[in-house]
């Protein structure tokens, strides 16, 4: 039995005008850390809300722990933990009060499953008597995670837990997820940060309500169909613009310190690119072959999808 399963889920808003989730299917296995990777507006939150039984899909079937999200919603609500993207705890209750409240609602106590939240809770325990609304962003996030875990859920849903969080806290958060995975909790997590994708067992890349690819991060990268180069030069932006309009180059975009590019001619190599840069008078030019990252795959799939969409029109 899969922890989560979606079959052809469709969700529209505004009388069908806005297609938020467009025929989405994927499965999350037991004990898996599964990432839903995509920008704002991709449909991630709608999927989370359908799976946690707080939103009805227009069409399609979805199950959590083998139970139907519509018929068996009461069962599911008892078995899952849900941390929404928006902070949703009681701002005027203290840390301890919030935790107690959620424990009581689920007919349990903080003590009963303490081992599960211990690592995370002890970081916020010094602020036990502070109202949740007065906590910092990082502490709010930790408290919300504790509240979502207090009843020892079988499946954990985390909707953009690291959005707006700095790079250091993001790293810490993913360490926490790794430890939870060891406790055999199945986790579905969404994020707009492509660099977090590599920390998941499997990922789905989602854009405009469509799943573009579902696989392990390694396989998605291996499926990148062309050789990818990284280049840089003194006048970075000038060269980027020239490369973009050059007919020999099929794609070129900035990627941190380097620009990433692919060539139309499969047989051309670094020497060819170096010569090309000479034509544009680039100084201090460097080029090398690199392994793509998830973000490269995402950009690639996005442009392929928009090409097929415009070909259809």
């Amino acid at each position: 039995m899969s922890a989560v399963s979606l079959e052809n889920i469709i969700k529209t808003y505004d009388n069908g005008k806005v297609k938020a989730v467009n025929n989405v299917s994927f499965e999350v296995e037991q004990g898996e850390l599964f990432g839903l990777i995509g920008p704002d507006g991709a449909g991630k939150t709608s999927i989370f809300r359908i799976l946690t039984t707080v939103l009805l899909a227009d069409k399609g079937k979805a199950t959590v722990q083998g139970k139907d999200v519509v018929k068996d919603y009461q069962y599911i609500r008892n078995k899952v933990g849900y941390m929404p993207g928006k902070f949703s705890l009681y701002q005027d209750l203290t840390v301890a009060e919030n935790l107690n409240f959620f424990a009581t609602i689920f007919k349990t106590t903080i003590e009963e499953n303490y081992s599960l939240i211990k690592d995370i809770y002890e970081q916020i325990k010094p602020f036990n008597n502070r109202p949740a609304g007065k906590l910092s962003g990082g502490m709010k996030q930790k408290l919300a995670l504790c509240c979502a875990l207090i009843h020892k859920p079988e499946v954990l849903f985390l909707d953009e837990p690291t959005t707006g969080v700095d790079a250091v806290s993001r790293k810490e958060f993913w360490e926490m997820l790794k430890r939870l995975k060891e406790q055999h909790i199945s986790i579905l997590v969404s994020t707009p940060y492509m660099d977090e994708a590599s920390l998941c067992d499997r990922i789905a890349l989602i854009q405009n309500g469509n799943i573009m690819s579902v696989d392990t991060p390694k396989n998605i990268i291996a499926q990148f169909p062309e050789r990818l180069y990284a280049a840089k030069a003194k006048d970075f932006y000038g060269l980027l613009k020239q490369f973009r309009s050059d007919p020999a180059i099929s794609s070129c975009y900035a990627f941190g310190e380097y620009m990433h590019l692919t060539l139309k001619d499969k047989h051309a190599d670094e020497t060819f690119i170096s010569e090309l840069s000479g034509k544009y008078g680039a100084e201090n030019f460097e080029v090398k072959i690199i392994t793509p990252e998830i973000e490269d795959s995402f950009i690639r799939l996005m442009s392929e999808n928009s090409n097929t969409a415009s070909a259809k029109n």
Partner: protein
Amino acid sequence: MSEKAIICKDLTKQFGDFKAVNKISFDVGQGEIFGFLGANGAGKTTAMRMLCGLSFPTSGEASVAGFNVYKQQEKIKANIGYMSQKFSLYENLTTFENIEFYGGVYGLSRKEIKKRGEDMVTMLGLANEAKKLVGELPLGWKQKLAFSVAIFHRPKIVFLDEPTGGVDPVTRRQFWDLIYEAAADGITVFVTTHYMDEAEYCNRISIMVDGKVEALDTPASLKKEFNTSSMDEVFYQLARRAQRSGD
């Protein structure tokens, strides 16, 4: 008249005993893209509010676009642009109505607004959407439009607070094209971001830790100084020293 867009010396903001911003000093050149980085709670927002003329410093000195942050706050506001991740245009006005509104607030004439507005929507490829409600535009377009509106009155400096948060990787790069164009036109860009690849696109960056500027240089020099090949690692080395956390 100085050539520096921003001059900051020992700028401090104290709330009770808490020094949110603790004696920060830096200069930003006209037309420079300056990345203002720091962990949550490091004091970035507080510093930015002082520089935008929204909050008085406790001590220290600063001038923005040549105006004093204590005495000339209104002049500062008229000479800067501001945009944040939170979308701030009116969703129930059309693209062109938003342009007219913001142009009017900044005191441009109707004639100027019409001319510049038409140029702007053409450049953004939004000519067909100019009469559509802004609320109906896709998110990526909204952010690009918000940026263009923020520099519509041709400010000397534009402040961008996490402008690309949650935006898809293609639109994020298109957004940086707009930043580069603005800088090439001489507009100083002061930008915060959590994306470390974007830090690389800045001419110089500063990294704040616990209210202080702990590093300030070009991305290349910082990587050299911290003996690493990635900005991510530079940030990590600095920010994990932080004692305080929060927003």
